[in-house]
């Protein structure tokens, strides 16, 4: 158990290393000079002198290996350097903005899981029934609407038309808790709606699969009450895939909240990222992406460890 946990940790770390290398390498491999791109995004055609000066400032004139080592070493210390645009510390900005994104994801995921898992379970237990049809219909509908469209439509309905919630914005929880929460409602529901179909479907199919296992027949044959069979021999075994998909979605959400934050003006990582992309602030972009990928890898590691606890057969 400990042995395989350690080996998973090692493989996660090596994955992280590969990802960091890749983030660094993309800049080298992809045609175009970051410095030139940065300057031309302002509109004017940059002079060679300007470009050269910026290259020095960005450290692009130094040998590749040195740049690489400095980048890695910085990343290990969570020091990602300064923004090319306003020279602020990238690490610091991430530290203030990341928690807001994580809060949004955590609340949204809790809502989605709380609704989708019981719903999916009941749909599977009465496959073909009314609840099942309703659930499949709702999830087909939600799955068809991109998350920013959901957000936009919710704003249109609740903020513009019904005027129940603010259309967007952010307030600090410490100083204005009510305001903070009312700002959180729409974006959280938007995200929750966008992942509902995935969790619902996975729960449903996983429970259905689990139902057809032969040990369910054994449990029935020994006279366990229906409820005990469902709880102990169906749901317990259906848990694994559901947990995996939740973990995967947590990771993907780190990316797709970009859109939701943008729609609702939620000042998480996204506003920062989108501005950085627009302004071609490559160091900032790659720092954010590295942090997100690291969280993603870490979540997956946790999920794997959890799976080992859930199923005694899963070892190494």
């Amino acid at each position: 158990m400990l042995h395989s946990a350690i080996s998973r940790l090692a493989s996660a770390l090596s994955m992280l290393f590969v990802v960091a290398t890749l983030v660094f390498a993309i800049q080298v491999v992809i045609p175009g000079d970051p410095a030139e791109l940065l300057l031309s995004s302002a509109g004017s055609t940059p002079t060679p002198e300007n470009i050269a000066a910026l290259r020095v400032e960005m450290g692009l004139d130094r040998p590749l290996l040195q740049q690489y080592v400095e980048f890695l070493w910085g990343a290990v210390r969570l020091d990602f350097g300064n923004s090319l645009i306003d020279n602020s510390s990238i690490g610091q900005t991430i530290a203030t903005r990341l928690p807001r994104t994580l809060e949004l994801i955590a609340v949204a995921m809790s809502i989605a899981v709380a609704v989708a898992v019981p719903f999916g379970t009941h749909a599977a237990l009465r496959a073909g029934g009314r609840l099942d049809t309703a659930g499949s219909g709702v999830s087909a509908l939600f799955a068809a609407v991109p998350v920013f469209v959901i957000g936009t439509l919710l704003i249109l309905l609740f903020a513009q038309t019904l005027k129940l919630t603010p259309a967007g914005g952010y307030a600090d929880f410490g100083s204005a808790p009510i305001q903070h929460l009312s700002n959180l409602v729409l974006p959280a529901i938007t995200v929750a709606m966008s992942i509902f179909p995935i969790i619902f479907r996975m729960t449903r199919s996983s429970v259905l699969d689990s139902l057809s296992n032969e040990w369910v027949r054994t449990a029935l044959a020994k006279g366990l009450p229906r409820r005990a069979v469902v709880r102990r021999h169906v749901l317990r075994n259906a848990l694994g895939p559901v947990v995996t998909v939740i973990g995967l979605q947590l990771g993907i959400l780190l990316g797709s909240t970009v859109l939701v934050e943008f729609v609702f003006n939620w000042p998480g990582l996204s506003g920062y990222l989108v501005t950085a992309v627009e302004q071609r602030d490559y160091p900032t972009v790659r720092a954010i992406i590295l942090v997100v990928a690291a969280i993603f890898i870490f979540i997956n590691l946790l999920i794997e460890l959890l799976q080992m606890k859930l199923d005694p057969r899963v070892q190494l």
Partner: protein
Amino acid sequence: MTITSASANPSSAFRFPLPRIHPRLRLPLAIVAIVLVAPFAVPPLLGIDPNAMSVLERFAGPSLAHPLGLDEFGRDRLARVLIGAQASLRVAVISALISCTIGSLIGLFGAYFRGLAGFLSTKTADVVLCFPPILLALLVVTLMGPGTTTLIWVLSIIYFPAFARIVYLEASRVSQLDYVVAAKALGARPRRVMFRTMLPNISGPIIVQLSLTAAAAIVTESGLSYLGLGVVPPDPSWGQMIRGARAYMERDPLGIIIPCVAISLTIYSVNLLTDRLRDVLDPKGLSGGIPILSPRRPKVQAAPQSATLEADTVLRIDHLDVATNTNGTPIKLIEDVNLRVRRGRCTALVGESGSGKSLTASSVMGLLPRGVNVTAGDIMLRSHNGETIQVTTLSGEDLEAIRGRDAAMIFQEPMTALNPVYRVGDQLIEAAKIHRSVSSAQAREEGIEFLKRVGVNDPVRRFDSFPHMLSGGLRQRVMIAMALSMQPGLLLADEPTTALDVTVQAEIIDLLIALKNSAGAPGILFISHDLGVVAQLADEIAVMYAGRVVEQGPAATVLGNARHPYTRALLQSMPAAHEELHASRSDTLPSIGGTPPLPHERPAGCAFRDRCPHAVSVCAEVRPDLTSVDGPDHLAACHLTRGSAV
């Protein structure tokens, strides 16, 4: 031998993906075709110009000339939304195709050659999958600048790993199958094996993934365009239209709703196609396998026969009919089966695959698969307090009360009959704890005692093992201990030794023989296809063929003086019965030609007649009844046994 039924062969349903379109796919395919073609065909047909502005008519409502009205610059919305579709669809379809091609090739090569190629194909996918898709896209956009070409590349990069992974997994699975091994054994070159043998057999999942990817690409494209980082003006795209319309949201909700609906409808139609494809490719998904947890058993006509069981009998089945009704027309799977199991004795049910042995046992437990029902007959079971229970009239909870306690069951596959996530001991005493509410400590002690009784060495350690730590033989012992733990009057054993090795099978048979001879032994209904196994255990034998009992009687009589041609043929075709014959002397084993008929094609008259060497004309017309031959206990269903011997 039930191969021709569609459900027996999942892959058969999707043989011709293109020429013969499955009915369930027609509607979604038509919709998707319209969605794909309309944006390119309609604007030239209508002759409307998406860029013609009439500023005076800004935000004009729908009219005949402009069915969807005009936008903030007075441009025709219908034209705009259709033109917007062009950009989105082009990007989505091209990138889906690119990622499909690249990913499939990587996955296929990886699975075929394994080693380094396999490692690379899985690891590339893992690495790319570490980036949430939108972020990866943003990373590339930062460096390459927005635009359609960038988008196509970005989306291809994002989505190829999923293809690589799926194709790798599927191809790896297929490459283990015997027909692929056969191709290699024939000396086929790798290219032939990969593209001619493997690829067609994994085309299903690839097509599903393609359609999934197309939908995902539309979503991602529109998201990026919405952020202003995807398709750039002047090319219109849906994401951009929504972005543009946001500013006028209050004044002009329609402006934002139209592209939102357009996007959603498109994705909905592609998703619908994907879902249907999945259903068609994997018919199991539709019925959900064999969930036995049917909410409530439909009650059979109340059979208030106040008949009671003879004193020495624990189970009697009278005139049992079991039928399925999946396609509207009821098909009888079991017809007119009569059986009796006596206390401490063993009745064996013998027959080939599909003859209805398992269904008979499942009927007793009330565990018939969904869609299969008892349609006639009585099943009478002795309860633990000596009363006679009419099983067919019981509903859910009453059935739960008899299962395990009055009738327990063991199955063929000890590997899958135990839940892998619980310790075997916990599963062993689970029912006892619920039914008798004994304390955990006491239940544990009893459980260990039962393990000892079924010959498990080191029962204390085994009690705390997980199923995967035990061998097949041990697991079957655990199953037997579990069945005995509630001291049932009847034990149903459905091929309990078939999956075991001969030496282990011999041990389990010895165990069952010892059980039969012990005090307070249950009656055993033993199901097997192997007459040799049956010979060692059974006191009485019933031979089933095509859903009916064709011969029945005391074991020694049936085995030693079989009268039905089928029973005789079965006995004759056992190689063990012919030690004097040998292939090197050009001997042949006596054998029956042909195969048993499937339930829906059972002929009138005797079901065995196509294979019967003695068939006469009456056999085709009249179904022979079970009638006594030789003595009152020995029954056979054959026209020839009535008068003279066969």
